[in-house]
Structures are given as structure tokens and as C-alpha cells.
């Protein structure tokens, strides 16, 4: 191959998950023929994270069944994996990173894809509790599986009724465990969905014999011989052989902050995923970025953002001028229910529920601000998800009386406002 302007140049990527890995492959495709080095402290070959709280928790597969790319692909594309390697410093003036063991690695372009880590709430007794687990890495799941195997009574308490907590509850129930979810707010998924959706999931779990207990503020954990007791401020107590924390995440932004990069609610990047240093980009969960459609800066925890920002950063580094402009989408699988979400509902003033006739557990919530559709949450209803996506993108106005009338055949042309 003829030498290009990228030959003999080095691109270093910090973080080898959805964002970092997709970036590395996209960069190659965009024409970068210099070195690409991917660093991650996780020793496993990069894997899909969403299944960790879903199928992977229960199906007994090894992580090899869950890889983002097979090992040969990295070799074939000349992408060097430096797994099990922790980076301790970014020196942007010298264009180097310093590894935990003191080694110095120079870069021409640096991409920060460090993601986030689960929050461990400062509950008295949590440090000395037995069998307390997080859900973020392959090792977390291996540890949970092992604890389950060695637990006779399999009493599990999950602290946190967000997506991770609820998905883990559904998955663990499938394994025959006795699962209880404790949520601090008045309803589950309070931060991200309308009350109707919270109620639906609470009922779904209740039907599956997983109690969802809300307004439960955990104040302490006491550990007896073989188990933990979770104490709440209302005086209630719950026994847990296994305790799982689903209490949200914190952005891994320390390296960027210490390097003097702009930080707000995450690492601030422009529409090309570049930080305030011209040779440093940031992508994925760790970024605070502008979304043109919603006209505000946001931070997102999702595969969509990781993959799309990865592509934008790769194109930008190779001299193109891409603009990050996407509608976020998410999914969650619990029991036999598939929830698909598109858009950002924050700031809505109306949440309309459309039910489908003769179909149980099949409905969608349409979030509007004025007559503008912001987001759709669809339960077992891919049609609603797809139509919602199209309407949010096109900006076409919806006749909400038609939307709410389930006797009208559900298709976009039938929902348009006159």
C-alpha cells in the first residue's frame, strides 16, 4: 500500500468497549493506515455489555459467545489490543499516555472511550457485606453466577429499580432465585419514563413474583454469618444472600479532567466528538455532547451513542467534517416483554398512551411538548417504535385523537394531522 498522510502515525484509544472498538474499525475503514492501539483495564476480549443484565446472566454462555468482534478481526485490521492494561495519565502537551507500570506511549491522536462505572452508594456496612455485586463487566457476571451456584436459599435483593436492576431481577428470577427490588423513588424508572410505564413494569414484576418495593431508602447493611440484612429508613428489613447494586453510574472522566480537558456532565466534545484539545476526541457514555435535534447538551448511556459517535470521530480524524446528529434509541428486555425507546422525553408536557386492540401487553407511550413529538416508549410494539422514529425525524405533526383511537389501523399515514 502506498504511504498516506496517516502512515507512521499512532492513534491511541482508551477504552475497548462498544465505542472504542467500533471507533478502531471505523478508523481503519476511513483510511487510517497508521497504528491503532486499544487500551482497557478489562482483560477480556471486548464484549457486548447490554446482554450482561439480560440473557448472558442466565444462559451460562462463556464470554467468547458474546464478543463484539472475533480475535482474528483485530489482527486482520492491524488493531493492537492492550487489554488488562490500566492507563494512569494523559500528558497532552507531550502527546503521550503513561501506563500504570510507568511505560510511556506516544500518540498523534487520542480517543477517550472510558465509559462509566457503577456507583457504589455510601451505605454504612456495604464495604463489609458479603456477596455484593455490580453489573458492568463480564467478571461481575461470572462472580454473580458463582455466588448463585454456592447459595442454597438464593435470596437476592437488588438495590435500584432502573433498567439494570429490573433486567437483572427478571433474569435472576428465571434462574429460580428469590428476588426483591428496592427502589428509593416513589416509582421505578422514575428518571426516564412516564408513570404509566413505571406502573406497567411494577405489575409485570409482581406477576412474575418479584416484589418491587418503592420508597425504600436503604440506610444500612448488616452482615450476619452467611447473609446480609438490608435496613431501610422506614424500619423494614430484607434478607439478602446476594446483594446487587443498580444505583446508576459515574462517568470515567478523571484522566480527562486531570489532563485539563473541558468537563461538564461528562467530557465536553463538539459535534465532531473532539474535546478542547485538537488531537483528543471523546466518544460514548463518557461524553457531554450537543444533540442538534433536541438543541441541548446531553450525556447518554447507550450503544447507539457509542457506535454513532465512534463513526463521527473516525471520519473527523481522517479529515472529513461529519456532524453528530442522531435520534437516540434504547431497548430493554424483561421476561417476555420487549421495551424499545426512541428519542428523549425530558421536558414533555403530555404523555399519551396508545393501546393495541386484542393484544395484551402491547402499547406505546408518546411524549409530546406542545405538538412536537419528543419520544416514544413501545412495549412489545416494534411498529410504534418504528413509526415514532420516523415522526421524530421528519417532524411531521400527529393528530393525537387518531393516535389514541386503536380502532384506526396503525400506520403513519393514518396518524398525520390534517
Amino acid at each position, binding site marked *: 500500500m502506498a504511504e498516506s498522510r496517516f502512515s507512521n502515525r499512532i492513534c491511541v484509544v482508551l477504552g475497548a468497549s462498544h465505542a472504542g472498538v467500533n471507533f478502531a474499525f471505523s478508523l481503519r475503514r476511513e483510511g487510517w493506515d497508521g497504528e491503532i492501539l486499544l487500551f482497557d483495564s478489562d482483560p477480556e476480549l471486548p464484549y457486548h455489555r447490554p*446482554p450482561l443484565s439480560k440473557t448472558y446472566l442466565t444462559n451460562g454462555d462463556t464470554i467468547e459467545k458474546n464478543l463484539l468482534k472475533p480475535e482474528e478481526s483485530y489482527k486482520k485490521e492491524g488493531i493492537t489490543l492492550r487489554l488488562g492494561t490500566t492507563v494512569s495519565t494523559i500528558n497532552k502537551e507531550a502527546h503521550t499516555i503513561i501506563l500504570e507500570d510507568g511505560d510511556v506511549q506516544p500518540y498523534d491522536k487520542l480517543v477517550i472511550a472510558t465509559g462509566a462505572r457503577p456507583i457504589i452508594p455510601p451505605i454504612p456496612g456495604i464495604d463489609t457485606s458479603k456477596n455484593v455485586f455490580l453489573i458492568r463487566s463480564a467478571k461481575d457476571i461470572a462472580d454473580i453466577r458463582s455466588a448463585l451456584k454456592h447459595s442454597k436459599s438464593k435470596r437476592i435483593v437488588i438495590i435500584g429499580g432502573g433498567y439494570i436492576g429490573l433486567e437483572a431481577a427478571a433474569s435472576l428470577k428465571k434462574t429460580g432465585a428469590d428476588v426483591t427490588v428496592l427502589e428509593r423513588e416513589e416509582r421505578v424508572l422514575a428518571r426516564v419514563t412516564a408513570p404509566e410505564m413505571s406502573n406497567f413494569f411494577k405489575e409485570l414484576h409482581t406477576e412474575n413474583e418479584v416484589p418491587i418495593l418503592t420508597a425504600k431508602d436503604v440506610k444500612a447493611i448488616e452482615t450476619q454469618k452467611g447473609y446480609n440484612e438490608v435496613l431501610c429508613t422506614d424500619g423494614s428489613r430484607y434478607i439478602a444472600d446476594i446483594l446487587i447494586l443498580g444505583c446508576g453510574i459515574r462517568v470515567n472522566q478523571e484522566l480527562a479532567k486531570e489532563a485539563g480537558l473541558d468537563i461538564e456532565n461528562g467530557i465536553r466534545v463538539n459535534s465532531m466528538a473532539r474535546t478542547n484539545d485538537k488531537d483528543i476526541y471523546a466518544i460514548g457514555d463518557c461524553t457531554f455532547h450537543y444533540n442538534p435535534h433536541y438543541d441541548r447538551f446531553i450525556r447518554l448511556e447507550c450503544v447507539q451513542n457509542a457506535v454513532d459517535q465512534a463513526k463521527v470521530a473516525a471520519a473527523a480524524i481522517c479529515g472529513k467534517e461529519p456532524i453528530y446528529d442522531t435520534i437516540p434509541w434504547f431497548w430493554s428486555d424483561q421476561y417476555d416483554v420487549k421495551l424499545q425507546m426512541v428519542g428523549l422525553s425530558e421536558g414533555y408536557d403530555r404523555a399519551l398512551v396508545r393501546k393495541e386492540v386484542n393484544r395484551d401487553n402491547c402499547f406505546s407511550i408518546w411524549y409530546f411538548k406542545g405538538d412536537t413529538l419528543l419520544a416514544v416508549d413501545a412495549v412489545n410494539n416494534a411498529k410504534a417504535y418504528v413509526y415514532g422514529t420516523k415522526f421524530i425525524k421528519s417532524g411531521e405533526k400527529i393528530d393525537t385523537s387518531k393516535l389514541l383511537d386503536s380502532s384506526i389501523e396503525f400506520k403513519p399515514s393514518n396518524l398525520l394531522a390534517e
Partner: protein
Amino acid sequence: MAKITFITSDNETHIVEGDSGSVMELAVNNGIQGIDGDCGGVCSCATCHVHVSPEDISKTGEASEIEKDMLELDDNADAYSRLGCQLAISDALDGIVLRVAK
């Protein structure tokens, strides 16, 4: 064992073999351009859209309901469209030709 032909949007032809998993996994594992499988194979992202060669549609069958709905995200979906993650590899798929959606 099934031998499957992928034709990418750049008109590159790749013939690959598989005996288990899904068509999406087979494509990702062989670096087929245009098949991303971002959601890991749970019919949530529609980034593994292929057009089955018309003479092979009897081997693959048509898309399921949720799959058809998800395929509507792509305006170029047609009666021969499938999501690779929903096509389980078996001997029955031997010899099929799939065109990767643009």
C-alpha cells in the same frame, strides 16, 4: 454446514461457511461490510438488514412480524428483506445469496 454468499453494497462477494449461530454473527465474524449487529442480535437495531436472493426466499422464509416492523426503519426494505440476527444458520441455508442492504 451452510455456505452463504454475501454481496456488499460495494459489490464485493464473500462466500463464508457457518454451522451455528445467526447469519448476523457469521457476517460480523467474517468482517462483512454493512452488517453491524449493534444490539448483539436481539432484533432491536435493524443494522443487519439483508435482501435474500428471490430464488432463496423459500429456504429462509419470510420475516416474522416484529422483524417486518423493524425493517420498516429502512425505506429500501422489500419482500425479500430479513434481519440477519433472526436467520439461524442450518444446512437449510446452504447456498443462499444475500445482498447487504445499503
